């Protein structure tokens, strides 16, 4: 892809960019479809249930049927809602979630855009989604939605701080925010990967990422038992589908990021396994993260809103700062990183 970025814009490379974007979108849509299926199957398995098994072979078409249902539903906008904002919010949630995927490298040469400040780009764009959640909560003109939107705003802003701080250690060791270069710096086998020297950062990153994704045990914004469904309580049909889509696309993005930043990207774990192509390793690590997220959902209860804030500011931020200190010491005295 890089070649086309360097050329001046013409009809040809505009077409190629569009095709590339459509390809990424297709991959993501297929991922979301089967991530939902996988989630339901995994959780069903953990709860002695069968999960979806009626639509298509092994229930493989269940999500397709669900999406079709959502798309065909009547488009309901509450009478007292703020119409313009109500319509804007789902789009605002989805667009950045998809845009962040542009920078993710799947292999040495398999990347849509090679951005120098890749991680920063991710953080900046994903922050926009927070706004959409607050807008959705406000525009619905529903008290539950408002509470959910406010919680969500507070949560996502708070957890972005430890999320970014936890990656600073990786950036210091690599000397770059470019995701491809971060993986290149982890060249080698599992003892070369970042999760070992950056174990504190890795832990903080995983916890903050779960909170950013609004997933158990941090699923407060949509805490069903208290707020009915949180900020999207008034949404139905395809607008609701957009929120769901955004959520799962972020799951995809976070799983990719974890793989790239801490688990060595497409590098095989052991020298004996070199013959397996890098993309397979990438997918395996990625699926492991996705599976773990579902696993956590089946296991843990939910935190309380004040505990959630306390955890971000009193536990995760100090830990992330400690990690930066340790990394700096490691680079200075033990020659970590390049």
């Amino acid at each position, binding site marked *: 892809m890089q070649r086309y970025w360097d050329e001046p814009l013409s009809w040809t490379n505009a077409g190629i960019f569009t095709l590339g974007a459509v390809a990424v979108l297709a991959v993501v849509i297929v991922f979301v479809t089967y991530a939902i299926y996988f989630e339901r199957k995994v*959780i069903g398995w953990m709860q*002695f249930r069968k999960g979806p098994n009626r639509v298509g072979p092994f229930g493989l078409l269940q999500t397709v049927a669900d999406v079709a249902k959502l798309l065909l539903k009547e488009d309901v906008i509450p009478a007292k809602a703020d119409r313009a904002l109500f319509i804007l919010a789902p789009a605002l949630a989805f667009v950045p979630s998809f845009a962040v995927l542009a920078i993710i490298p799947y292999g040495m040469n398999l990347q849509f855009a090679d951005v120098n400040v890749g991680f920063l780009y991710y953080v900046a764009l994903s922050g926009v989604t927070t706004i959409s959640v607050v807008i959705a909560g406000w525009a619905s003109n529903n008290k539950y939605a408002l509470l959910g939107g406010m919680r969500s705003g507070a949560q996502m802003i708070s957890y972005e701080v430890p999320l970014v701080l936890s990656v600073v250690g990786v950036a210091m060791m690599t000397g770059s925010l470019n995701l491809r270069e971060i993986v290149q710096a982890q060249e080698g086998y599992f003892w070369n990967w970042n999760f070992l020297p950056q174990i504190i950062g890795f832990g903080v990153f995983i916890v903050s990422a779960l909170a950013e994704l609004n997933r158990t045990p941090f*699923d407060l914004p949509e*805490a069903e*038992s208290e707020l009915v469904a949180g900020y999207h309580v008034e949404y139905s049909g395809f607008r609701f589908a957009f929120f769901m889509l955004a959520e799962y696309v972020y799951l995809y993005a976070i799983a990719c990021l974890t793989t790239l930043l801490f688990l060595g990207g497409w590098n095989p774990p052991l020298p004996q396994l070199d013959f397996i192509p890098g993309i397979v390793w990438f997918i395996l690590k990625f699926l492991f993260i996705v599976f773990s997220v579902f696993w956590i959902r*089946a296991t*843990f209860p*939910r935190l309380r*809103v004040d*505990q959630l804030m306390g955890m971000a500011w009193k536990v995760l931020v100090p830990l992330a700062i400690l990690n930066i200190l340790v990394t700096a010491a490691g680079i200075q005295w033990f020659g970590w990183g390049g």
Partner: protein
Amino acid sequence: MTTRTEELLLNVGPQHPSTHGVLRIVVKLDGEIVTEAEPVTGYLHRGTEKLAESLNYTQIIPYTDRMDYVSAMTNNYVLCYAVEKMMGIEVPERAQFLRLIAMELQRIASHLVWWGTYLLDIGALSPFLFAFNDRERILQLFNELCGARLTYNYMRIGGVKWDAPEGWIDRVKQFVKDMKSHLDEYHNLVSGNEIFLSRVKGVGAYDARTAIEYGLSGPNLRCTGVKWDLRKNEPYCIYDRFEFDVPVGKNGDCYDRYYVRMEEIRQSLRILEQALEQFPPEGETMGKVPRVIRPPVGEVFVRIESPRGELGCYIVSRGKAEPYRLKFRRPSFVNLQILPKLLVGESMTNLVTILGSIDIVLGEVDG
């Protein structure tokens, strides 16, 4: 422009996933902090007590099923017990055992429903399904016993309607054995979880004095350390023949209520084990009962320990086949009264935690 803050009036329920039915709570919120809460009940009121005045005693039994529909066996029992006490009817040994086994199984089933839904309120999905898996086995046993899964109509004045089918006692024995190990698994999964503990420890606490003043009973009273269990203190049925402990808490918070209920499952299993060992191999299941049940003129009040607390039944008879007045002391209704006091100053999240820990069944609250 001057900014102005005002309290948010939020209507929780009657359709809300965590009010466990059709309870409505009108809460005033300052941000997310509750400043005032008022439970509104009556959405499921069917007038059981009034209806009973035009029914004969046997006909009332199915109505009691529908009060606390999570624990129908104990409701059946309290009515039969009251009438039997009034008329001095002797219940045969085998029927007594069947009643006791049914009631203790019901207590386990009821506490399992509570456990599952409580964890669901707190945000954990899986315990709900685990609990319902075990409860399903109990329902299956009841189904074999009386042909119904929820509203059993099993007990009759003077005994029980059906004898235990072939091999039923062995299946109950097997269930008790399995349930014991499952209970340990449940403790492993939930009871030590840091997130769970931080959600329930110290939340919704009250002391023994407050509990007694509000008339609380059952686990809601025992969580404060008051050792009061009617099965021990005023034994009915044949509870005085078995050995069991009365688990009590100390701090009166949500965790202690959780702990007391979980321990009660263990004690119920203990009672069941002994009862199944001593189960008489044969005998009558119905005592000698006149064809038309006409209790003598007078009144009676009996109370038993239902899974939710003290379930009382008060009957005034004028010597007719129908009661002149029938009144149930419904523990859910009484226990609910402390809710407004507990909720003030708590967040919306704790509202759900506290309401869940009181363990109400709306069929019983509304009567």
